[in-house]
């Protein structure tokens, strides 16, 4: 029982998807129990696989899928430590979310279908993590997108949900186009989809620098699409139209992590393209600010968390662009747990508030929802990077790699990002849990049932204590040595004074400042900012106008372009080209018909003359 069984993880979930989707109606719990059983099995298997990988090193499993010409496509999987980390995250969070959903989604008319989709999603995500071949990677990547599309649009009767699903799929699909082109560019240069071969060729210098640059940029665009990096981040907030557990699973812990994972997986290629790494870091930093700034002004609890996710993904990209691959993955892991916790907590709140999501109507929920309050505090402080919660360790690691490889200016920018994080966390905690209840629903809110609080509590442990993984204890040398990216050696976690003190001090003070600020004003939006620089707030309220720009582009460029083509097709190709041929025939008929006298004599004369002409031609030429 070991890594050669790793393929079972996605396989059991796929099986669950097929069975539940087809027969769910006739299964107990409409298939939900089967789906949970599958992901539970996957979670158990994960421990065996991990033990095996840790003990015996990475292993792989590959089998030909189909071939054509000189192309053979293999279904390959590879389990290494990077994959293990992701497997753990995906299976654990999926399990928690599905258990949570059991209670949360009770009574929904499409209860079984919901769980089938969850199985599909988990299966594709697990397979994505295991892929050792770019094509398999792309396939699972698309399936993850499909799962996300179907889950966001789960309540498709709502116009907004179906629009959000469409937007999410199409936006990420734009990135996917770049990704696929990047994969094919690499394929053209190397003749293979196998990652190990590509890396070997790249290190041996057999791939031209242009190809590497081009393909990494394209792959990064793909990653940016899925990981909601600027300027592709617009789909993620809208994706909150899906059921809240889905947001926890997909839009916090797993799917959006796929882009980060992709870049980390392709690390051997990215390190050969320093210019592209600059781009990655720059986009990451931009995303940090945009996400954090927008999180400050939102009033929908789920959207605040969504923008926060965007911002945190920006941190991961920043780390990747600063060669901090291990740091990025560690932050990904920590973020996955605490953000899932936040979302599930938010789900409980929304449940308690009778589907109201506006934080202006909340307040004072601390006493009404004590368990959720504890969860939110732990996850929120982790998000803000407060010692000793998991977020502190991972964010410290990220900032350290920025300082190490990018210099003080970038580091300072990163610090500002984490200050903003602390501020919006403070705002969120204050407005939701502290102060006075601001609506009838808030006054009457009741704690969620045990079926929902249990998974929340289960997630509290990793969200709080995951930082321990960073440290060395016993045989374990810390995360920096566990997950090693060549050509970098192991980099055990240390408390660097230059990073530790500023970041902790700033985060802590910003958090306190935020709390006091909201306590003083009691307002929902920061009145100070509103007075001083109103344009900034207006811009933020309008999400920096990006949606407007995209909408305009779609309306005025894409749709107009397509209408032009359609018009061209009708007017030029069809009416001028095709129907005109018909009209020309008709017209020539109108003109030529006067030749037809209807008199037999005329016709016979014509026949005779023609026959003679033909004979003459034959005689003279033959």
């Amino acid at each position, binding site marked *: 029982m070991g890594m050669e069984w790793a393929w079972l993880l996605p396989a059991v979930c796929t099986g669950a998807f097929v069975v539940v989707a087809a027969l769910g109606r006739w299964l107990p719990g409409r298939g939900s129990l089967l789906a949970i059983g599958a992901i539970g099995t996957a979670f158990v298997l994960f421990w065996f696989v991990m033990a095996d990988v840790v003990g015996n090193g990475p292993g792989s499993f590959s089998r030909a899928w189909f071939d054509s010409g000189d192309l053979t496509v293999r279904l390959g999987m590879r389990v290494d430590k990077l994959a293990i980390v992701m497997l753990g995250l995906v299976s654990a969070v999926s399990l928690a979310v599905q258990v949570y959903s059991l209670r949360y989604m009770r009574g929904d008319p499409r209860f079984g279908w919901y769980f089938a989709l969850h199985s599909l999603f988990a299966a594709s995500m697990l397979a994505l993590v295991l892929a050792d071949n770019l094509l398999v990677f792309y396939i699972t990547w698309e399936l993850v997108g499909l799962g996300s599309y179907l889950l966001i649009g789960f309540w498709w009767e709502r116009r907004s949900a179906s629009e959000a699903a469409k937007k999410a799929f199409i936006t990420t699909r734009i990135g996917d186009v770049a990704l696929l082109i990047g994969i094919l560019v690499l394929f053209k240069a190397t003749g293979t989809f196998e990652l190990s071969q590509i890396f070997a060729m790249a290190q041996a210098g057999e791939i031209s620098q242009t190809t590497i640059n081009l393909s990494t940029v394209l792959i990064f665009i793909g990653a940016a699409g899925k990981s909601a990096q600027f300027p592709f981040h617009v789909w993620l907030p809208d994706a909150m139209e899906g059921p809240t557990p889905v947001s926890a699973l997909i839009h916090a812990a797993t799917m959006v992590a796929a882009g980060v994972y992709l870049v980390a997986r392709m690390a051997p290629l990215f390190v050969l393209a320093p210019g592209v790494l600059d781009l990655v870091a720059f986009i990451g930093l931009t995303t940090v600010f945009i996400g954090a700034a927008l999180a400050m002004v939102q009033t929908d609890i789920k959207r605040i968390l969504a923008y926060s996710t965007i911002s945190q993904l920006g941190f991961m990209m920043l780390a990747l662009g600063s060669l901090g691959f291990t740091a990025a993955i560690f932050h990904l892991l920590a973020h996955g747990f605490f953000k899932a916790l936040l979302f599930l907590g938010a789900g409980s709140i929304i449940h308690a508030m009778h589907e109201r999501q506006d934080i202006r109507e909340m307040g004072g929920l601390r006493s009404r929802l004590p368990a959720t309050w504890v969860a939110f505090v732990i996850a929120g402080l982790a998000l803000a990077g407060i010692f000793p919660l998991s977020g502190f360790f991972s964010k410290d690691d990220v900032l350290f790699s920025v300082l190490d490889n990018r210099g003080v200016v970038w580091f300072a920018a990163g610090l500002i990002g984490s200050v903003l994080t602390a501020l919006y966390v403070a705002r969120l905690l204050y407005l939701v849990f502290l102060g006075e209840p601001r609506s009838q629903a808030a006054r009457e809110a009741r704690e969620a049932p045990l079926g929902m609080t249990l998974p929340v509590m289960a997630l509290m442990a990793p969200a709080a204590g995951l930082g321990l993984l960073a440290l060395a204890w016993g045989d374990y040398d810390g995360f920096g040595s566990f997950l090693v990216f060549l050509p970098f050696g192991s980099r055990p976690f240390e408390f660097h004074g230059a990073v530790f003190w500023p970041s902790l001090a700033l985060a802590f003070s910003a958090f306190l400042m935020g709390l006091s600020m909201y306590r003083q004003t009691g307002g929902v939006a920061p009145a100070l900012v509103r007075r001083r620089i109103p344009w900034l707030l207006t811009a933020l309220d309008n999400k920096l106008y990006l949606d407007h720009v995209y909408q305009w582009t779609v309306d005025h460029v894409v749709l107009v372009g397509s209408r032009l083509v359609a018009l061209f097709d009708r007017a030029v190709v069809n009416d001028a080209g095709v129907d005109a041929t018909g009209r020309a025939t008709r017209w020539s008929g109108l003109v030529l018909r006067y030749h037809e006298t209807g008199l037999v*004599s*005329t016709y016979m*004369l014509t026949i*005779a*003359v023609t026959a*003679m002409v033909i*004979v*003459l031609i034959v*005689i003279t030429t033959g």
Partner: protein
Amino acid sequence: MSPLLAIYIVVSVMAVAGGLGTVLARNVVYASLFLLLSLLSVAGIYVLLFSPFLALVQVLIYGGAIIIVVLFALMLTRQGDETGSLDSPQKPLAAVAGLAALGVLIATIVVNKWPPSVDPEPVGFEKLGATLFTQWAVPFEIASVLLLVALIGAIVIARPEDSQ
């Protein structure tokens, strides 16, 4: 000039004269009688060309059947009451076309290098019959079906409407 040739010339002149009469006659009945002359002369030509069977067929079918049918048709359409010319207004054009055709045909005959001709010998009835009913049996049958179809068709077309 061999006697055969002399006979040939006489018969030819008769055939051409009949033809001329056919196309120039002012009366339909005369025209058909001229045609009969021409057709019978052509039968004579067949005899001179050693094809007695064909000559027989010519006399029987053309001389007998066809001309009779034509005369019947003339009677039924009461040509005597017909006023006006038998000729079409494009008669001059037709003359030009006819002469041109003659020119083209003569030119073709003259220009063409004909292969050396063999000495003609009579075509026996037995040989003709054997060929017709072995090698050409299928076309022969088709021809008979054609005749039948034409016969029925002619009846259907010519039948008065009110009898339907």
